[in-house]
Structures are given as structure tokens and as C-alpha cells.
């Protein structure tokens, strides 16, 4: 067998283990994909939120029923997810507006502001959840 025929062992990176543990999306990448996911989530949720606004303004009984339903855990969980999506979309959006103005585009600052966006949206979600329930 000639040496050329000996198969070179090359590292394979497109397996599940690599995808989960080895190839990591940088933090600004996470902020970016979460911006898209939260935006899509909010778009899908508009119909529900508008429906709640509609009901809540029709009568006191309907208003109280919505308030009561908001305490059921699946509803509460969904609302919290939407509040997070809104907060994330808000803070990440402000970050993008600043990036458009060439503010914070060097790697170090970009990573720092990404962490700030993630932290701020989680904190505001927790605070609003605490305020609401």
C-alpha cells in the first residue's frame, strides 16, 4: 500500500457532540439569533395580546376574568416568555441602533454589550414578573 492510499485521519466536526459541545456561537451571535426568535415569537403573539386588550376593555367582568386567567401557570409562563421576548428585542434593538451609528463595534465592546443585553432583559423580565404577580 502506498503512503498516499493511507487515509489521513482528519478531525470531524459535524457530529452531534461537536455541534453541542465544541462549536460555540459567540455571544453577539446569540443576541442576534435571539433577536430574530423573539421577534418571530412576538409577531405570532400579536393576535393573543390584541384579543386580551379587546376583552379587557369591554367590561369589568371580562377584565377580571383576564386577570384571573393570568394567574394560571401555563398562561403566566407564556406571558413571562413574551415579556422576556419584548425586553430582549427592546435592548438588543437599541444595541443595533448604536451599532448602526458605529458605536461599540470593536470586539471587546461588542461582546460586553451583548452580555449587558442578555442580563438587562432577564432582569427586567424578572422585575416585571414580580410586579405583575
Amino acid at each position, binding site marked *: 500500500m502506498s503512503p498516499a492510499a493511507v487515509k489521513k485521519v482528519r478531525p470531524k466536526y459535524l457530529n452531534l457532540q461537536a455541534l453541542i459541545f465544541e462549536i460555540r456561537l459567540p455571544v453577539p451571535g446569540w443576541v442576534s439569533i435571539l433577536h430574530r426568535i423573539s421577534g418571530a415569537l412576538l409577531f405570532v403573539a400579536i393576535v393573543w395580546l390584541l384579543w386580551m*386588550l379587546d376583552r379587557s376593555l369591554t367590561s369589568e367582568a371580562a*377584565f377580571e376574568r383576564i386577570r384571573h386567567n393570568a394567574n394560571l401557570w401555563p398562561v403566566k409562563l407564556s406571558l413571562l416568555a413574551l415579556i422576556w421576548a419584548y425586553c430582549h428585542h427592546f435592548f438588543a434593538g437599541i444595541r443595533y441602533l448604536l451599532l448602526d451609528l458605529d458605536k461599540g463595534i470593536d470586539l471587546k465592546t461588542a461582546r460586553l454589550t451583548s452580555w449587558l443585553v442578555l442580563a438587562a432583559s432577564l432582569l427586567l423580565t424578572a422585575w416585571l414578573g414580580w410586579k405583575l404577580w
Partner: protein
Amino acid sequence: MTRRIVTGAHYGLRDWLAQRTTAGIMAIYSVIALVVFVSNKNLTYGVWRDLFSQGWMRVATLLFMASLAWHAWVGVRDILMDYIKPDGLRLSLQVLTLLTLASYIGWTIQILWR
């Protein structure tokens, strides 16, 4: 700085700018809504109804909804362009998105001026 001659219909720039302008409008509304929410300790039906019976709140909310519709149109269109490759399906979903957003604006007007 890149200097180049931009050609074409320029709707890319218009949408880019629209997405950011509408984002600014919604951000301001969100901050006002947050302040109203925090300053009202006990949000009863009466407080809620009175808030939405005021002219400025109705106009601001409609402005928010119109901004949201335009903003979401640009965003959803971007998502559809990225992931939906068959032309017919993509066009159908885009038309569906536009109709949905337009109906949301109509619904909002109905809710606010009842």
C-alpha cells in the same frame, strides 16, 4: 468609508430606515407604558378604561400599532426571504403576513374607538 454609486429602486434603504424609525416610536411608547404601569399601584378596570378613553392614549396606541405592523412586515419578510426558498410559497406567506398585519390595524381601531 466606501464610496459607491447606489442604483436600483432603493426600497432596501427605505425599509431599513422604516424599521429603525418605527422601532424608535415603539421604544418611546414602551417607556411611557412602563411609567404608567409602575405609577399605578392598583390597576383596576376603571383606571384601565379611563386610560384608553383619553384621546392621546388612543392616538399613541394606534401609532404604536401602525409602527408595529410596518416593523413586523420588514422583519417577517427578512425571515421569509432567509428560510422559505420556493417562490410561490414565499409570496403566499408574504401576502398572508401583509393581510394579517393590515387586519390587526383595523382591529386596533375597532378596540380603541368603540
